[in-house]
C-alpha cells in the first residue's frame, strides 16, 4: 500500500539517483508515458502551445542520458555534477484506490562543471502512479523561481 511515507521516500530516492549519476536507474522511475517538464511561464498551463524550457518524453530523456556518456560529447569534458537540496515534500493528492498521487517539493539545485557552479531554486511537482507495488513518474514538473532569466547551460536534471 502506498502511503505518504512511500511517496516522500520515492522523491528523496529520485534525487539521490540524480546526485549519484545513476541515470539508468533514474530513467527506470518513469512511467512509459512519463514526461519531464520545465515551464517558461508563471503557473503555465499548456506544455505544447506555450513555450517551455523542456518538455520531454522517455525517448528524449534516454537520448540525454546516452549523450552524457558519449565519446564525442564535448560539453561533458569535464563532466558536470549536481546536488539537490529538498524541502520535505508536501503530499497534494493521495488517491490510493485510483493509484494516483501528487506531491510538491521546494528545492535548491546546484549544477557544477569545472570551476563553475550555478544554483537554481524552484518547486518540483511529481505526478505519480502506482505500478505493481511501486510508483512511477507520470509527470515531473519543475517551476524555477526565475524561469525567465537568461541561463547558461543546464546539462543535467533538476
Amino acid at each position, binding site marked *: 500500500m502506498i502511503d505518504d511515507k512511500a511517496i516522500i521516500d520515492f522523491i528523496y530516492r529520485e534525487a539521490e539517483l540524480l546526485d549519484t549519476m545513476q541515470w539508468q536507474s533514474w530513467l527506470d522511475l518513469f512511467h512509459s508515458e512519463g514526461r519531464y517538464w520545465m515551464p517558461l511561464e508563471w503557473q503555465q498551463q499548456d506544455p505544447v*502551445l506555450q*513555450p517551455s*524550457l523542456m518538455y520531454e*518524453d522517455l*525517448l528524449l530523456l534516454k537520448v540525454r542520458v546516452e*549523450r552524457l556518456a558519449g565519446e564525442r560529447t564535448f560539453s561533458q569534458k569535464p563532466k558536470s555534477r549536481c546536488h539537490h537540496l529538498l524541502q520535505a515534500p508536501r503530499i497534494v493528492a493521495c488517491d490510493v484506490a485510483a493509484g494516483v498521487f501528487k506531491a510538491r517539493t521546494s528545492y535548491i539545485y546546484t549544477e557544477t562543471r569545472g570551476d563553475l557552479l550555478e544554483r537554481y531554486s524552484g518547486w518540483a511537482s511529481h505526478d505519480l502512479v502506482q505500478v505493481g507495488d511501486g510508483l512511477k513518474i507520470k509527470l515531473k514538473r519543475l517551476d524555477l523561481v526565475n524561469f*525567465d532569466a*537568461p541561463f547558461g547551460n*543546464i546539462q543535467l536534471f533538476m
Partner: protein
Amino acid sequence: MGKHASDRRSIAALVREAEVHRDVYVDPEIFDLEMEHLFPNSWIYVGHASQLGKPGDFITATIGRQPVLASRHTDGSIHVFYNRCPHKGVKIASEPCGNTGKFFRCPYHAWSFKTDGSLLAIPLKKGYEATGFGDTQANEGLSRVRNVAIYRDFIFARLSERGLSFEDYFGESLSTIDNMVDRSPEGKLAVMAAPIRYMHTCNWKMLVENQTDTCHPMVAHESSAGTAVKVWKREQGDSTETPMAVQLYGPFMSPYEFYEQSGIRIWPNGHGHTGVANSIHSNYSDVDGYLDQMVAAYGETRAHEILGEVRHNTVYFPNIMVKGAVQILRNFIPIAVDRTLVESWVYRLVGAPDKLYERALMYNRFINAPTSIVGHDDLEMYERAQEGLKSNGNQWINLRRLYAADEQPDVTAVINGTSERQMRNQFHAWAKFMTMGMDEHTEAAQ
C-alpha cells in the same frame, strides 16, 4: 587611448581578404567601438508590431548599449524612443513589455509623456516659467529615434543620423522575411509569448558566424542529433511514423555533400542565408489541412512556391538570424566582449493549424534553449574559442574555405553550401559599418 580607437586604418587592418584578427572577438576596445559605431550605423531589430497590439502597448530593447523603447500611439502609429527621461535620465520603462495606458509617467518626479513621446505635463509647471525651459531639449519630451522602418511588422531602427536607407541596407535579403510572413494563410505573424533566453559567455559574432557554418553540425552535434538518431533506430520497434522530435534532430546529421549542394546565398551589407536548393527543414511531414488553407489563400502555384522555399538560416547583419521555415528569430544581443544574450523568438502563423506553432516551439526548445543538448554542443565550442583565442601562437582566424582571389564584396551570389564566403561577407560589412563616418569623427575630435 587604446590600439585601435577611432583609427579607420587600424580597424580595417583586422580584416584581411580571408582572415580576421582575434582582436575582433577578444579586445574590449573593439567591443566598445562596435557599440559606438557598428550598431548605431546598422539597422537593428527592435521587435514585432504584434507585440504592440493596442495603443499604450510598449516594448523595450537595446541597440548596442543604448536602451530604447517602442510604443503604439493612440493613432495607431509606432514610435521608437531612447528609454530615458529628459529630466534626469531615469529609464521610463523597465519591463520587457506592457501597457502604459494613455501616457508614460516617469517614476522619479512624475514628468509625463504622450505615447508619441511628446511632453504632456510636469508637476508644478510654474517653476519652469521664465527659465528658458522652452528652448531645452527636455521640452521636446522623449528623444526620438528618427530612423525607424517597419517592414511587414518587423520593427527596425538605426540610431545614427547618417547611413544607408533601410531599403539600401537590406535589399533583396528581405525575401526571407517575406517568405516567413507569407507562410501564414492570412499573411500575418504574431508573437504570443516571451522568448527563450540563453546567456553565452562568448563574443556575439561567434554566434552570428555559426548560423552559416555548415561544416560543424555533423561534427559538433554528433553528440546530440547523432545520439537522437541512434536511440530512435534502436527503440522505434515497429512504429512507422518518425516522431516530430526525431524529424527535427535527424537532419543535423546530414553529410557534407548535403550541405555542399544545398548552397549559400550572399547579399550586400553582410546578409546571407544557407539552404538555397533545400535545407535541413525540407522534409518535415505535412500538417493536416495546412496546404489546403494555403492554396485557398494564395492559389495552387503561389502556395507551392511559398512552401517550397525552405531556407535554413538567414543572417541579417549584424545580429539577428531568421529561420522562416520554423518561424524563429534569434537576436544575438551583445553584453560584453565575452558575453552575449541570445533571445529566441517564435512567431505564430496567424490562421494556420496549431501543429505548426507546436513544431516551432518544439524546435526552439530543442535547439535554442539553455536546456538544449544541441545548444550545449555549440556553446561549448564558442567558449573554447573564446579561451583559445587568448593564445598568441597564431593571432588570425582562418576563413579561407572556398575562397577565390577575385571575390567581389557587396554582391549577390549563390555559392557552394560549405563555403566560408558568408563569413567573409560579414566581415567585409563589419569593417564597413565599423568605420563608416569615422574619418569625420576623428577630425571633429582634433
